[in-house]
């Protein structure tokens, strides 16, 4: 089955891509670039890096900008998926949804209208196990956004490793934070994964932190041999 993966360049969409490529034929990535940082569906710092990631993966990318208003961004997503269906003859769409009924049902409705299959291979997976799986599969993932107390600027740019997972699980117990950031507490950027033909090297970045949230903005990056 020819599939398009909704791809933000974060850990969930990259892991969903990994699962999908093991079972079916992934023919393109679909990326929505929100101009509104408070987007309901797509909040990802470094979304621009996704084009470099697509190149590193050797997959074509269907991109669409959205002003990020609640309903408009859904129609923009529908247009992007329709473009992918037309350009790459996809038969189905894959998302990295884990717990969010809000995201999952909206993509399901779009796929249903367009006559496409919809898959959510990370659906309901244990969040700590998901993080550990990234390590087992040798993903190189950095924290590129923190959006909840007590996460602070010290987390930004950190690589996800055993120690960091342990600290996230502690925070879950103390503060009810979702360890994989499913509640939008954390955003991530994947620099390397098994399907990457080349890895991403960050050359320049900027850390912005204000109040209880901050981002690790990649200003310049390049692909290097693995």
């Amino acid at each position, binding site marked *: *089955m020819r599939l398009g993966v909704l791809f933000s360049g974060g850990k969930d969409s990259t892991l969903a891509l990994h*699962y*999908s490529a093991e*079972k*079916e034929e992934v023919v393109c990535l679909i990326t929505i670039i929100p101009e509104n940082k408070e987007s309901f569906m797509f909040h990802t710092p470094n979304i621009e890096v996704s084009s470099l990631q697509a190149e590193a993966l050797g997959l074509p990318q269907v991109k669409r900008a959205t002003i990020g208003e609640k309903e408009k961004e859904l129609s923009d997503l529908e247009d992007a998926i329709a473009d992918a269906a037309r350009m790459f003859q996809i038969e*189905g769409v*894959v998302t990295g949804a884990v717990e969010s*009924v809000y995201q999952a*049902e909206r993509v*399901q*409705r779009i*796929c*249903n209208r367009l*006559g*496409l*299959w*919809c*898959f*959510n*291979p*990370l*659906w*309901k*997976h*244990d969040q700590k196990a998901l993080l550990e799986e990234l390590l087992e599969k040798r993903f190189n993932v950095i924290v590129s956004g923190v959006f909840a107390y007590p996460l602070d600027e010290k987390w930004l740019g950190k690589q996800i490793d055993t120690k960091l997972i342990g600290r996230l699980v502690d925070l879950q117990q103390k503060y009810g934070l979702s360890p994989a950031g499913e509640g939008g507490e954390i955003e991530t950027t994947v620099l390397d994964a098994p399907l990457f033909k080349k890895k991403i090297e960050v050359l320049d970045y900027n850390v912005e932190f204000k109040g209880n949230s901050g981002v690790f903005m990649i200003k310049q990056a390049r692909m290097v041999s693995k």
Partner: protein
Amino acid sequence: MILIVDMNWKKDSLGYYEFVSPILTIAKTQDECIVKHFLDLTSQDMNRCKSVILSGTALKDTATLSQPEKFTWLKETKKPVLGICAGMETIGAVYGMRLFRCLEIGMTSISTVKENPFYRKDFKAYSLHSYCIEPSADFTVYAKSAKCVQIIKHKTNPIYGVLFHPEVRNAELIRRFIQLES
């Protein structure tokens, strides 16, 4: 032991993670489990297990509905069976019920219409289906949404069908089914 039947269109499919794994995660807190694809089921599997759960599938997946002959065992077994979504529709197909196009996606309000072991009051659950059933006289209706029948049980055998996906926001239904029938 609980037998979880993978109802996806093919064995080892991409649908496994979404429609079988979450049921397995809940069921294995209650008892030992095995998973078999519906095309690979043997009478030995049926003999070994205490109860059976039929998984749901992707919205576009109607593979089991076009092969009801693979499920004739549903009419013969005395073991407890819980059919989820496509699983309930397949129970309907085997028992000669009419299937209708009926689309529900997302959190759905459900009314309890008869006393049952799962819910006393109205509740919400995650729906993902494009068909519903018209229950035959052999089945009792326990719950309904505004659009269609949501929970049924065979009048004499422990065969249950739920159209919504309890593994998403109503794990208690799966646990209750396992406790009830063990």
